[in-house]
C-alpha cells in the first residue's frame, strides 16, 4: 500500500486537479471490465512506463480499498501524502463507484474456474436446399461461444441441428437442476 501510494503521489500530481475526477472514473471503468483510459488522451503528462505504473497502482488501490471495505478515514490516512485536491477526488470517486467496483470484483471471483463461458451468440439458418435435395428446409443453429480459458478468450463455434440442440439443452438443464438442488 505504501509503495503504491508513493508512485501515485509522484504521478497523479502531474494532472491538474480539475481533470482528476474524470480520469479516475475512467480508471474505475477499467476495473469494472470496460475500456480503461487511453494514453493518447493524456499523452503530455506521462511517459509510457509512468502511465502503466499509474494505471496499475490506481486500479489495485481501488480494488483493495473496496475489497477490504476501508472506511473513509482509513482511505484518507493511506492517501495522507497526496495533495488535498487529488485526495478528495479519489475519495469521491471511491464513494460513488463502490458498488460497481464490488460487482467487478465479484465477477473476478466468480471466474476462478479454469474455463468460463464469457458470452455467447447464435444465429438460425434455414438450409433451403442442398446439392442433392431440392427442398431441404432444415433448420440449423450456429452457436458461437466465447470461453475464457486461463485468461485467454477462446472462440468455439458449433453448428447444430434440431436433435443436437435438444441434447445440448437437456444437458444444460440437468446441470441447472444440480445447481438448484445445491440451493
Amino acid at each position: 500500500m505504501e509503495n503504491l501510494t508513493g508512485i501515485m503521489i509522484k504521478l497523479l500530481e502531474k494532472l491538474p486537479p480539475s481533470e482528476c475526477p474524470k480520469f479516475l472514473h475512467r480508471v474505475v471503468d477499467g476495473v469494472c471490465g470496460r475500456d480503461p483510459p487511453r494514453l493518447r488522451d493524456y499523452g503530455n503528462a506521462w511517459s509510457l512506463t509512468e502511465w502503466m505504473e499509474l494505471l496499475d497502482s490506481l486500479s489495485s488501490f481501488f480494488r483493495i480499498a473496496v475489497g477490504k471495505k476501508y472506511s473513509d478515514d482509513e482511505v484518507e490516512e493511506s492517501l495522507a501524502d497526496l495533495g488535498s485536491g487529488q485526495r478528495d477526488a479519489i475519495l469521491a470517486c471511491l464513494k460513488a463507484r463502490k458498488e460497481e467496483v464490488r460487482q467487478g470484483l465479484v465477477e473476478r471471483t466468480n471466474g476462478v474456474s479454469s474455463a468460463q463461458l464469457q458470452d455467447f451468440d447464435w444465429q438460425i439458418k434455414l438450409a433451403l436446399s442442398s446439392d442433392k435435395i431440392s427442398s431441404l428446409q432444415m433448420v440449423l443453429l450456429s452457436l458461437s461461444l466465447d470461453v475464457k480459458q486461463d485468461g485467454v478468450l477462446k472462440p468455439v463455434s458449433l453448428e447444430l441441428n434440431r436433435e443436437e440442440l435438444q441434447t445440448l439443452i437437456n444437458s444444460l438443464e440437468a446441470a441447472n437442476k444440480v445447481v438448484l438442488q445445491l440451493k
Partner: protein
Amino acid sequence: MFKKVACTVPGNHRHLPYSAAFPTLRPAVLTENSEQTQERRWTGGGEEVDGGCKEREVAEDVDSVKQFSSELIVEAVVRCLRVIDPPLGNGLSPTLPPGMSARFRLGMSLAQACQDLGYKGEIGYQTFLYSSEPEIRSLLMFLVEKLPRASAEASDQPAGKSALLQKAISAQVRAQLALPWVPPTCRLPLLCRTQSTGMSGIFRSQALSLPYSKGLGKPPVKEVSDYYRDFLLPVTAQPSQYASVPASLLERHALDLSAAQEWENEWNSQGLLTRLSPEGYRSRKRARLQKRIEEQLRAAAQPHPNSPHGPHSGPDLAEMLHSFGGATTGGTVLAKGTRFTHTEKFTFTQEPETSAQQMAAAASVMPSSRQSEEDLLAQQQDELQALQDQLKQLSIRMEEVGGDMKQLSVSIAQVSDELKQRELSNGEKEDSVRVKKQTIDLLPDAENNLAKLQTLVESSAKRVISLASQWEKHRAPLIEECRRLKELCSNRELESSRKLFEIKDLHDKIRQSADEAKKKEGLYKQLITEFENLPKDVSRCAYTQRILEIVGNIRKQKEEITKILSDTKELQKEINSLTGKLDRTFAVTDELVFKDAKKDESVRKSYKYLAALHENCTQLIQTIEDTGTIMREIRDLEEQIETENGKKTVSNLERILEDYKAIRQENSALAAKVREA
C-alpha cells in the same frame, strides 16, 4: 444472450431457384372447362401414397377426356383410389399389364372397388379398357368428389406459422435472387445488407453502468448523484465498439429479467409456503447456504495425508473458514435474492477479508515484478524453500501437539464425569444424614412428637386437598381457554392454508390466461395478415350479377314455356270446339237430310254421300293423329339409336368377343403348358 434471426443459405448447399408452382391436388381435368386445360398432373395421389412411384404427366396433345388412353384411365383411377382408401388402392397396380386375362382381372377389381365406394353408374372391366367419354367423365367426377376433404381444405384454412414463415422466406429469397449482383463499391445501403460477404460483426456484450438506485427508500449519496450527473457516459458511448451497444443492452435486460423471474418463481413455489416475509425468507436461505458451503469447505479442508496439496491448503482453508464464520453475523442484507446475488454473496461478501488479503498480496506482487526479475526470482526461491521447510516442521509439530491435546481432552472429560458422579452421591448421602439426625433428635419424647407429627400430617393432608380443589377450580377454565385457543389456532391454520391454495390457484390461472391470451393474439395476427394477403379484387358483385343474369334467363325460358303451353292449350281448346261444332253441324245436317230423305229419292242419295263423307273425314283425322304419334315414336327411337351408337355397343361387343377369344387362347396355351409339364 443476444438474440437475432438471420435467414441465410449456407455455402455448402447449392442454391436452387424457388419454384412458385405448387402442385394442385385436384386434377384440373374434371372441371367444367376441362377441354381447354393444358397441364394436368396426378400429383396429389402419387405424392401422398407412394413417394417412390413416378408420377405421370399427361401428354401435351391430349386435350380432352375423349383422348385418354386406357393406361391413363387406369392410372388415374388407381391413384385416386389410393388417396381415398389406401389399403384398397395399394393392392392395385397403376400400370396396365400386357396379358389379356390380367387386364380383365385388373378391370374387374377396379370396377369392384369403384362399386364398393358407392359408384352407382354402370361399370365393368370394359369401362376401363374400351372407354366411352361420358362414362369415364362421370366415373372420374365421382372419384374426385370422394377425394379426402382434409387435404383439399388445407389450402383454404389459415396456414400454420411455419408455412407462413416458409412462404415469407421464399418470397425474400426470390426477391434477392431477382436483384443483380453489384460490385461492392457501387452498392447502395440496401444492397450492402444483403450482398455483403460474411457476418456484419460479432456481437459481444459488456457490462454497463446504469444510474438506478437499489434501495428506493434511501436518498442517493451525494457523490453517487454527482457521478451520475457529471461523469457517467450515456449508455450508447459506454461500450468500446458501437456495434456491441444493442448486445450489451439486451444482455443487461435479460439479466435483470431472468433475475426477477427466477425470484418470482421461487417465491411463488417455495417462498409462499414458508409464510415468511420476503426478507425473512431471503435471510433464512442465506443462512442455509452459508451453512452448506461451510460444511463443504470444511469437508474439503480435512487434511489428506496421501495428497500433496493437503498439508498446504489445509491451514489456508481453515483460516478462510474462520473468517467466513466471523463474517456470517455481519453480512449485509442485499436487495435481491436470486442466484446471481447468492453466488455473489458467498463468493465475495462473506469472505471479504480473505479475498482482500489475497488481492492485496497479488497487487503488491505486481509492481515489484517489474524490477530486477532474476534477483528477485532467486531470492524468492530461497525464501520459498526456507518457508516450506519451516512449514513442514511446524505442521509436524502441530500434528504432535494435536495428538497430545486430543488425549488430554479425553482424560479431562473422563475426570469431569467422575467428579459429577461423586458430587451426586455426596448430595444423596448428605440428605440421608440430615433425615437420620432429625429422627435421632425426636427420639427422647417419642409419644408427644408422634402425636404432633400425626396432626401435622393430617393438616398437611387437608391443605393438600384444599389446594387440589382450588387448583381444580383454576384449572378448569384455563383448560377450557387453552382448548378454545387451540381450536382457534387450528382454524386459522386451515384458513391460511386454504388461502394459500387459493393464491396458488390464482397464480396458475393468471399464467394460463396470459398464455391463452398470447396464443389468441398470435392467431389473430396471423389471420389478419392472411386476410390482408387475400386478393381483394374478387368481388361479390360479379358473382351476384351473373347469378341474377342466370335467374333472368331462366325466367325468360319459363315464360316462353308457359306461352307455348298456353298456345298448345288454346289449340287443344280450338280443336275441341271445332270437333264439337262439327259434330253438332253433322247431327243437324244428318237430321235435316234424313227427314228429307224419306220424301225424296235424290236426297236419300245425298244422305248416303254425307254419311260416307263423314266417315272418310273421321278416318282422315284418325290417320293424321296416328301419323303424329308414329312420328313422335320415330323421333324417340332415333334418339335411342343415337345414344346406343354413342356407346359403341357393336364394336364393344366385337372387342369383348375378341377378348373372349384371346382369353380362351391364353387358357388353352396355359392348359397345354400344364399338360406338357
